[in-house]
């Protein structure tokens, strides 16, 4: 029937217009779930590397609600990293952040396996994750599975003696490009 197909068309057209409205509302709903501007604005933390005077001591800072491990390396540690031919340690030196000739580890202190916080053992110079036994060396590189990779390094930018966490500086971009961190 010619008539009924035309009726069907108007019904469908109305439905289509209503669907456009529904999609529009879904857009507004999606936006309402986004992190608030105050959350985004709080996503930058500045740390002063000259605050970390004692080498081989773990300092824990906060950034975007996550723990940030900061540690200054002893000259022996640096030597170890540079000399070693161990397959992990070859990567270690690339993870360091060097400011004024001093080497630092700055990384997100969450196990890359399932997100627990590993503990640092200064005497053994390594990290152990209590959850599933994952281990990392003092530079944050994984030495024992299950963690699939070393600690992630937060986006950072070197400004003089300080680091702005959350901003991507050239040093960080290089680490990303060479696969040192994800």
């Amino acid at each position, binding site marked *: 029937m010619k008539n009924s197909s035309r009726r069907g068309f108007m019904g469908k057209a109305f439905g289509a*217009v209503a669907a456009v409205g529904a999609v529009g509302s879904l857009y507004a709903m999606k936006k309402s779930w986004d992190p608030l501007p105050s959350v985004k604005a709080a996503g930058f933390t500045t740390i002063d590397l000259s605050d970390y005077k004692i080498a081989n001591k773990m300092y824990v800072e906060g950034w975007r609600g996550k723990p940030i491990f900061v540690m200054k390396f002893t000259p022996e540690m640096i030597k170890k990293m540079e000399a070693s031919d161990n397959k992990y340690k070859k990567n270690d030196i690339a993870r360091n952040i060097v400011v004024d000739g001093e080497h630092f580890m700055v990384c997100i202190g969450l196990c890359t396996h399932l997100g627990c916080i590993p503990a640092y053992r200064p005497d053994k110079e390594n990290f152990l994750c209590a959850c599933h036994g994952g281990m990392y060396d003092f530079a944050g590189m994984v030495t024992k599975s299950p963690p699939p990779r070393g600690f992630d390094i937060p986006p950072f930018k070197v400004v003089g003696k300080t680091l702005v966490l959350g901003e991507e500086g050239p040093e960080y971009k290089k680490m990303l490009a060479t696969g040192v961190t994800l």
Partner: protein
Amino acid sequence: MKELLILVIVSVFTLATYYLTETLPSKVNEIHAESHGFAYADLPALTKKGNAARGKALVMGAGACSGCHAITVAGNPAPMDPVTAASAYGVNPPDLSNVGAVYSPKFLAALIKNPAHALILEHKFNAKNGRSFPMPQFYGAGGDKDQEIADMVAYLQSIAVPKDKLTPDIAFQTACGRCHAVHYTKWTQIGQTPKFKKEQAKLEFRTKELNYQDSLIAYLGKLPPDLSMYIRSRGEEYINNFMEDPQNYIKGTAMPRVGVSKEGAEKVMDYLKKAGDPKAAERTSVGKDVMIFLVIFAIFAILWKKEVWKDLH
């Protein structure tokens, strides 16, 4: 056509109810006040042409302004921090850097001459009750007093930001911000709230703020309200007329006449809009899109109804 008649009846009763419960009561209950465009007709007009260089000498010297007021742009720091100043004077005396841009020159002149009169605070500070306004009157530096005042006003105007550079922040902070906080913009009576790394620093700042507020309460009788949502709780017209003369709405209020110029008042309004209703523009633009969609939606709904009902009749 019967439906149209019903629609007319429903609309008439709806609009009548709206008029009777919204429009009319607000007219009846409203305190009427009119704006005179910040002309301050009660104050004498400026007749003398000022000389900024002579004004500078007076402001820094014989006028003794810089003894209490900061003039940051001219390199004159505040003699006291805000909290100490407030405990001495009741309120922190304003930095004179931009007063020439925010206040009406006529008002500035009248204020220098007789502060309590210009501020409409003579009901509070007068010879009868023996209270005098913290800022002394200017009795002249030996020459023509009116000329000297005109010189000082000219100087203050010369150091202030040019009109096109006057920002809402400068206007608000100069004219209102020493008595009123706006916590939605993180403004306090002692300045913008900084970012704190330590809880102690936060508490220290808060303590200073509370001490300052105590001085204000002692001086004014109560803490002036936080203005965060005033743009929506009072509306533009009320704020405008209130700023021009607070006695318009509240007889005997401790709030002085602010004396802002028309431009200064506009900037203050912009500040309050930014603080209390920053999404107003988005509301209009999203509103237009939604209305266009709904009109199309309604057309399709009516067309669908027509199709469906064609063979029901």
